């Protein structure tokens, strides 16, 4: 008598890897904490900054556009995307789960692709919803001072643009996680790249400095997530996002090349 029931089932494919990664992502608590943090920070800070700045923005002294404030929280929410993207893989390396994962799905590229897809979809949805909640909350205060913004044109683009930015950022962070295989290292590297190095790049003088500033991922990427950027020197929304996607693709390619060669 067999102790195991022999089952016949078809060969697993890409879709099965995607389903498994989806189950993995939502069966750990860190995912929920990170997503809640994105929503609370992203929408909450936008509402807060609009509530406190609306009067000034409506006055004659204002030298910034209300459009720069309506997605203000989306300057902080990317931290959540960085953390979620990195954790999706570095906790596997940290716990040893990765050996189980690659023994189960030896096609390693499939694991990378499945994780990237699940992350991108989740972060796109959460990013867009977060921006919309922030818009509703922030615009309430802008409206009271007569400077409310209609949900159309660049404002509307900034809503799903927030989702698009977080999606690509999460995938870049995932790829960095595959490369460095360590949670703290991956998150520090990404935060330094996006928030510190990109922010310091205007210090480089001359035309070369201008271009480095424009092309830095932390500058090129987020332009899609705001109707009016605080920094007038940056690339326009879709060009910037295109540059950011290309940069993400390069990091993913490096991660994939290393993944194929390395021992687990």
């Amino acid at each position, binding site marked *: 008598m*067999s*102790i*195991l*029931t*022999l*089952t016949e*089932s*078809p*060969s*697993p*494919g890409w879709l*099965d*890897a995607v*389903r*498994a990664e989806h*189950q*993995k992502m939502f*069966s*750990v*608590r*860190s995912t929920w904490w990170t997503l809640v943090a994105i929503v609370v920070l992203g929408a909450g800070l936008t509402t807060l900054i609009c509530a406190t700045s609306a009067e000034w923005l409506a006055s004659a002294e204002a030298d910034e556009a209300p459009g720069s404030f309506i997605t203000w929280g989306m300057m902080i929410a990317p931290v959540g995307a960085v953390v979620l993207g990195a954790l999706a893989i570095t*906790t*596997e390396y940290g*716990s*040893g*789960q*990765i*050996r*189980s994962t*690659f*023994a*189960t*799905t*030896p*096609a390693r590229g499939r694991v990378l692709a499945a994780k990237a897809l699940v992350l991108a979809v989740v972060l796109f949805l959460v990013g867009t919803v977060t921006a919309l909640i922030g818009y509703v909350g922030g615009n309430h205060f802008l409206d009271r001072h007569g400077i409310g913004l209609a949900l159309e044109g660049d404002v509307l683009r900034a809503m799903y643009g927030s989702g698009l930015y977080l999606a690509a950022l999460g995938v870049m962070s995932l790829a960095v996680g595959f490369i460095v295989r360590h949670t703290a290292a991956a998150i520090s590297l990404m935060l330094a790249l996006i928030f510190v190095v990109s922010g310091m790049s205007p210090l480089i003088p001359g035309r070369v400095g201008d271009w480095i500033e424009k092309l830095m991922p932390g500058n090129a990427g987020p332009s899609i997530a705001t109707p009016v950027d605080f920094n007038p020197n940056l690339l326009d929304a879709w060009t910037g996002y295109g540059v950011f996607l290309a940069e993400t693709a390069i990091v993913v390619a490096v991660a994939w090349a290393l993944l194929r*060669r390395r*021992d*687990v």
Partner: protein
Amino acid sequence: MIEAHSLTKHYGDAVAVAGIDMVVEPGRVTGFLGPNGAGKSTTMRMILGLDRPTSGRVTVNGRRYVDSPAPLREVGALLDAHAVHPGRTARQHLRQLATSNRLDPRRVDEVLDLVGLTEVADKRAGKFSLGMGQRLGIAAALIGDPAVVVLDEPVNGLDPEGIRWVRSLARRLADEGRTVFISSHLMSEMALMADHLVVIGRGRILADCSMDRFMAEHAASSVVVRTPEPGAAAAALREAELEREGDVLVVRGLDAAQVGDLLFIAGVRVHELTTRRASLEDAFMTLTADAVQFHATARTPEEVPA
């Protein structure tokens, strides 16, 4: 069936596996025995495609594991009881494994029941004891109902009841015609579990034979004779292999009855006649003595640096 051909793995300058050839046959339990650092885990990781061989190859059922169309149904492996995210429950861990290989989701409950973890199925794996972790790892190895089962040190951390359970499980899996490949650094454990033995030391195969043959070859018995007339006894037993230590003779190649009869015929007085059987553990130690990576060296006090 697992086949390795000149399988070699270097980590930098260190040679972990030095060109091994072996065939692990289905229908029997093959023990993979060696001291720590002998290359057991590296070999198992190469079988599963986790480590890439420096040269040579290893195949499972005739093809590289990474080329398997249905990995979990081909090979089930326990490589490391901790290869589980501590935040997931046992059920969640097994469910995502089943999903990734498009297995029937009912397999999750079946293997939980098989390893006796049903009651703690919704507990986080991070809270599991070492023994429960081993059981979860074995559940994961069996979820795809694989023809080949690879278990790296499965009895680590198990209590005596658990050890006996692994032993009978291995036996049943082999009796069902599966290939069962189990590593251990404990000879005593292998002696009870394995039909066939592959001994590895410093990355080389030291022995590859049936358990019975290994015992016959390496655990040879001897007969100890204590006599006040060792000279006369030695003469009477000259056909056998002899070792003399004062009034004690150690005789190999004859059993106690033969020795007793020969000494009786020669009229030699005997004060003690004992059969001494070398333990398998001794045999294993002797075989791998030169192959142990980390020797504990005893120093006399004078040699200890001040």
